[in-house]
Structures are given as structure tokens and as C-alpha cells.
């Protein structure tokens, strides 16, 4: 009996360990990345994480492709901003509880829309979500009393009564508020995957027909997941409202929904943690790469297409692929080929992107001849950079092709299980 208890508590500790580590990381992060700009970006990453995780409840866990998930986030956010403004008129609600209200709004909306949209999955579901998304995004402009037209609705989070003496004036205070809700949301979403209906969502995704023959209506299973996703999207919306203090029609727009799809997919929809990676990666692509080049969207699009084609389980999938070699103790076989291909691959990518940037530069900024790429400034109207970059691209590509075989062989070797 004693041993059972200790094993039990040991298990609990083991399953709680990732959460404790995550909490610590979230606490430490602002001390590593200092400066208002980086906290703003981290806040945005946090919001995107909640949103992408919520989206993955639909796409990854439930097999529903939605083109209108921003609707639930947007509505949650709009209500949250309005409440922030009501707080000024004497409504008592501490700011840290606002995401709960946002979540309930998202839940409410999902309850309505889900009641008819979850009857079918696949194209029909996708198209209903597109229709609803377009409808609401467009009514944003028409219903100005609630949505504030194209300039949106803004509020001020500092009007809320102070919570434990915190007024949420600085970004860092907001960061910890968001971090708290990110943890709570991820934890709850994780628990959801461990419940009967969460598990049946996977079953319905894999084989809806058989799920019906074990007694579950696929529609109701989808409906519950859909409502759950709406709830967490609403939380993300309220966090958005707290962080940015403004909600506009953009929050409900197709573009927003598309971005979430991109982020989630690049991260990997088949894994619980995938959307977190995707949200971090995508936000950095958007903000950091966006500062470097105005072609960031092109690069993001290409990365997305490559993911869909060659790594359907996303970035997380690529990482988890290495679990088997690691377990077999053969991961070291991969180090050398990887290191070998890394250099030519980097040269290839650097060369190709530089060529693209250079062409773009000549095409659209013809008179400014000096251009800086990867910290090297040179003249774009001379022939030498072109030759060098072309050589880098082609050479890098060729060497990659040669080394690729080694990688494939090593991969096969590393995954080979001896019989016996």
C-alpha cells in the first residue's frame, strides 16, 4: 500500500513536471528579453498561443477545418473592451477576470453557430465557417454602435479597480497576466484531451462512422469540441483586448483566421504542443522578419507550402521524428550528416533569399543602389554580387543534393531496429 501511494505521488510529480518547468520559464522570460518592444511581442505570442491551441482543438483534435475562427476571438475581445469601458462607469470587475468573460462570450457564440455548422465536417463545415466569418466581418462596418466601424472600439485597462494593488499600467504587468491565462488555458485544453469527449473528438476525426457505431453522435462530439474551442478563442480575444486596448474589424476578419491556420499548421496540428511552437515561430516571422524585409509574407507562404507538402505534421513532427533514433540510441549517427548538410543548406538559403531580395530591390527601388543583406552592404548595380549569389545558390543546392543521400542513408540506419 505504501509503495502504491509513493508510486502514485511519483506519477503526479512526473506529470506535473512539464507544467512547473513551463511556469518557471514564463516567469523568467521577461528577465532575459528586456525592453518594451520584446515584452509587447511576447504578449502577442502568448495571445497567439491560446488562439492557436484553441484552433487546434478544431483542426488537430477534431478534424474540422475552419476559415472563421477569428470570429469567436473577435467577439470575446469586443465584449471585453466594452466591459473595460463599463468599468469606468462603475461596473466592478477586476481586470484579471476579464478573460473569463471573453471566454463565455466565445462559448456563447460557438454554441449558436455550432448548433448548425457541426453537422458535417470537411468542406461543408469549412464553407459555413467562411460564410459566418465573412458575414460578421462585414457587419462590423455596418453595425457601428457595437463594433465602432472601421476604427474599432478602444478602452483603457487601467480604469479597472486595482487587483492586489496592481493597476496594469506597464507592459510587464500585462505580461504576467497573459502568462497566467496562457498557462491556465493550455492546462485546461490539455485536460480536455484527457476527457471522454476529448478522446472521442480524436475518434470522430479519425473515423466518424465507427464513432457513431460505438454510441457517439459525431455531431455532438464535434459540437462540444467546437464550443470548447470557442471558449478559449474568447479568452484569447479578451487577452488581446487587455494587451492592445483596441479591437477593430480586423480582429474578426478572414486574414486573422488565415494567420491562425498558418501558425497552427506550421507548428504541427498532430501534436498537443505543436500550436505553441507554431504561434511562437509565426509571430516571430511576422514581427522580426517583417522588420527585416517587406517580402516576409512571401517567405512565410513558401514555408507554409513546404510544410504542407513535405512535413504534414509540422515543425513539431520533424522534431518528434527523432524520438525513435533517440530511443534506439542511434541519434548520434545523424549528427555528422546533419552538420555536413547544414552549411551548404544555409549557403543555399542565404543565396536564394539574397537573390530574391536583390531582384526586388532593383525592381522597386532602382535608384538606391546600395543594399544591405545579412549585414553586408554592396552595390546592386554591379555584376559581381549577382554572380556570387548565383554561385552560392546553385552550389549550395548541388552540394545539398549530394549530401542529402548521406542524410537519407543515415536516417534509415538510425531508425533500423535489429530483429531478435
Amino acid at each position, binding site marked *: 500500500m505504501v509503495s502504491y501511494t509513493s508510486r502514485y505521488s511519483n506519477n503526479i510529480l512526473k506529470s506535473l513536471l512539464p507544467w512547473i518547468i513551463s511556469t518557471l520559464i514564463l516567469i523568467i522570460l521577461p528577465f532575459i528579453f528586456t525592453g*518594451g518592444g520584446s515584452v509587447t511581442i511576447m504578449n502577442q505570442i502568448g495571445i497567439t498561443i491560446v488562439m492557436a491551441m484553441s484552433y487546434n482543438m478544431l483542426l488537430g483534435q477534431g478534424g474540422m477545418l475552419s476559415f472563421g475562427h477569428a470570429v469567436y476571438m473577435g467577439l470575446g475581445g469586443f465584449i471585453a473592451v466594452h466591459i473595460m469601458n463599463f468599468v469606468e462607469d462603475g461596473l466592478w470587475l477586476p481586470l484579471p477576470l476579464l478573460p473569463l468573460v471573453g471566454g463565455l462570450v466565445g462559448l456563447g457564440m460557438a454554441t449558436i453557430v455550432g448548433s448548425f455548422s457541426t453537422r458535417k465536417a470537411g468542406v461543408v463545415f469549412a464553407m459555413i465557417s467562411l460564410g459566418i466569418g465573412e458575414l460578421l466581418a462585414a457587419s462590423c462596418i*455596418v453595425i457601428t454602435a457595437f463594433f465602432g466601424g472601421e476604427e474599432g472600439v478602444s478602452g483603457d485597462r487601467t480604469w479597472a479597480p486595482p487587483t492586489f494593488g496592481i493597476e496594469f499600467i506597464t507592459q510587464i504587468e500585462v505580461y504576467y497576466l497573459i502568462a497566467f491565462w496562457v498557462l491556465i488555458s493550455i492546462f485546461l485544453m490539455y485536460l480536455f484531451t484527457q476527457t471522454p469527449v476529448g478522446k472521442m473528438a480524436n475518434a470522430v476525426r479519425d473515423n466518424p462512422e465507427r464513432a457513431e457505431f460505438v454510441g457517439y453522435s459525431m455531431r455532438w462530439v464535434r459540437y462540444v469540441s467546437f464550443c470548447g474551442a470557442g471558449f478559449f478563442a474568447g479568452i484569447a480575444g479578451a487577452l488581446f483586448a487587455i494587451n492592445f486596448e483596441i479591437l477593430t474589424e480586423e480582429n474578426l476578419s478572414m486574414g486573422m483566421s488565415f494567420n491562425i491556420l498558418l501558425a497552427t499548421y506550421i507548428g504541427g496540428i498532430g501534436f498537443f504542443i505543436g500550436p505553441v511552437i507554431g504561434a511562437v515561430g509565426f509571430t516571430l516571422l511576422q514581427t522580426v522578419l517583417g522588420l527585416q524585409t517587406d517580402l*516576409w509574407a512571401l517567405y512565410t507562404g513558401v514555408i507554409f507550402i513546404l510544410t504542407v507538402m513535405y512535413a504534414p505534421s509540422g515543425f513539431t513532427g520533424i522534431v518528434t521524428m527523432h524520438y525513435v533514433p533517440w530511443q534506439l540510441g542511434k541519434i548520434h549517427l545523424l549528427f555528422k550528416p546533419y552538420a555536413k548538410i547544414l552549411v551548404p543548406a544555409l549557403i543555399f538559403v542565404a543565396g536564394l533569399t539574397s537573390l530574391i531580395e536583390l531582384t526586388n530591390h532593383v525592381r522597386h527601388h532602382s535608384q538606391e543602389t546600395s543594399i544591405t543583406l545579412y549585414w553586408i552592404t554592396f552595390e546592386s548595380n554591379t555584376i559581381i554580387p549577382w554572380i556570387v549569389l548565383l554561385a552560392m545558390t546553385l552550389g549550395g543546392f548541388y552540394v545539398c543534393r549530394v549530401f542529402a543521400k548521406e542524410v537519407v542513408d543515415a536516417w534509415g540506419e538510425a531508425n533500423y531496429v535489429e530483429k531478435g
Partner: protein
Amino acid sequence: MKLFKKFASFVLASGVFFSSSTFADTVKIAFIEPLSGPYAASGSQGLAQFKFVAEDQINKKGGVLGGKNFEIIGFDNKLSAKEAVIQVEVAIDQGIRFIAQGNSSGIANAITDHVKKHNKRNPDKRVLFINYSAVDPALTNDKCNFWHFRFDANADNKMDAITDVIAGQPDIKKMYLIGQDYSFGKAVAAAAEKYLAEKTSVEIVGNELHPISKVQDFTPYARKIMASGADAVITGNWGADMLNLGKSLTEAGYKGPIYCYYCFGVGITSVFGEKGVGMLKAVGEGFHNPAPSDEFRQFHKRFKAKYPDNDFDQPRVINALSMLALAIDKAGTADDVVAVAKALEGMTFDSKLLNTKVYMRPQDHQAIQNLHIGDHSADVEFDMDNSGYGMKIFKTVEMASMDSPTTCKMKRP
């Protein structure tokens, strides 16, 4: 190994994450506009003009504060309020104290709101908002604040000028108002109704708003306008909505004038070509035919030499940067933005280059300046879109709306 180091430094340096260094030798101005995506054209055109004016008009003349140069840094807001707020934060974090923006009043609203809150919460890192193009009247009325300065005439001022011209045209008896269904479109319609009633006996035969950027085919609207018997049309449309409306009207056989705010540049002038002659009549401060001065000819030549594909269509950029430079010199600091703002208030700027005066009204931070009504014409010295067509001034309203009322109640620190 060298490459690896390079890669590592790329990863590190690409982050705004680590960098928060401030260089004291330049006065940095963050230019926050759409620089990617479908609306990037106007953003990158504006950036070119800012960079050129800073170099040509400020830095070459010795800069400010005895030798500090203006440095324009572009930030991509992707025409999104959220991104704009993020970029403002990033800019502030890089030590930038002046934010310039103008495309889309919605974004301007978000920025002015954010700047107001930021300045209240961070008195040590206050910033000024240089609005060079967003014309929603609310920005200098109900939503005005001490940190916001508008260098473009607002929608009301512009309508004031348009209706001055219309009042002098007795053959215009019936007017059709059409605009995009959002705050700016509504502001244009409201101003048109008001001024037409005040100044003329023109009958408004149609007043409607259409969904913004959602109408692909304007033919039914054109039919309606034809059927209403309108002699003239007023519209605040821009981009594809402007182009499609104008094209549908010509195709439907409409022959009258279209008074517009944004019917030139970004390809619109070149697509209209000969068909726009006698039809498009735009309001703005930025038309240079005939040339305002010899100096401007030289200036324009230098600009075109550097940016042959761009138009210099926003001379208010010259006003904005020149006035900012004067204010910084007068305040003796580029860090204490309160002093700079106080110097800017009530300033009258006499531009030899543009041969005009600009007055920054202190009560609402609205710049008062000459407004022109221009004709789409081939008889121009400076064309647009390199198309051979440009805007030829046929009427100028001096210091337009100098005494217009404002609801602004400005709180000063």
C-alpha cells in the same frame, strides 16, 4: 565556423529582443505604414518622400540642434491596428520619440489613442504623433490630444474648398454623393451636405454609402447616378473603389465632373489616362502645376532622379519635417517632446519651396494651409505615374478653413 558565427549573430541581431540601444547622433522618426501586402504602394511611396525630404531639406541644410540629422526608419504596420500598436512600442523601445503615420484614419485613431495612453503611463518616454495624411475630422475634434499634429487638411477643410468651387459653377444643379461605408466616407458625406446647403442651392439627388472594398462591379451604382440626372458627383473613395467607380461611370456614359479626394497617383492617374480629362477634379494641397517655384523644379528633379517610379505627391511631408525641425531647434531638444510640441503649436511656416504658408492651429493641432482643386490634365509640367497626366490647379483656396470651429478640448501637460 565563420559561417556559423554569422548565422548565430543573425539570429541574435534579428531580434528586437536584445537591441534597445539609442544612438544620440540622429533624431529618429518612425515611419509606420503598410510596407507589405496589397496596400503597400502608398506606404512605400510615403517612405520614399520622407526619406528624400529628410535628406534633401533637413540634413543637407545642416540638420537640427547644430548638426544632428533626421533619420527615417520604416516600420511595417501591415495596415492593421494591432501591428501598428506593436510597431509603435518597438519604435519607442528603440529610443524613437517621433511617430509618423497617415494612411488610414482607423490606424491613426489606434495610434493616437495608444500614444495618449503611453504618454500618460510613461512620462519619461513620451512621443509625438506626426499625422501627415489621415483626414478623419475626429482626430482634431472629439479625439484630439496634445501629442497629435495633423499636417494634412482634414476632410471638412477639403470639402469646404470643394464646395467653394462648386458654388462658382451655376450649371451644377444636381449633386450625387457616394462614398465608402466607414467613418471617412461618412465624414465626407456629412461635410458635403452641410457645406452645399450653406453655400449653394444645389440639390442632393443621391447620398449613399457602399461597403468598402467589397464592391467588384460598380455598374449598378453608375446606372443609379445616371438615372438620378446628377450633374456632378462627390466621392471620398480611394484605391480600387475609386478606380472602379470612375471607370463604371465613364462606361455608363456619365459626362459630368467627379469631385474626389484620392483620384490620383498609385496607378489611378495612368489607368484613367485620357478618359479622366475633364472628369476628375481632386482636392489637395499637393498639386504642383503650375510649379510653385523654381526651387521646387530643382527639388522635383532631384527627387525623380532618385525615385524615377515614384511621384512626389505629398508636399505636406516637407511641411511636416521642416516644421518639426524648426520646433526642435526652437525647443533646443529632441528628447523633451513636450517642449517640441509647445514650439510646434501656433507655428507659422513660410515655405519658399512650395511658395505657401502653413499655420499649426494651437487649439486643435490642425495645420491650416492653401488647398487646391486640380484637374486631371495632360497639360502639366509634373505628371503622375509617369503617364503624361497630372493634376493641374484651376482654383486655390487660401488658408482654407482658417476659422472653422473645432470641438477639441485639449488637455496640456
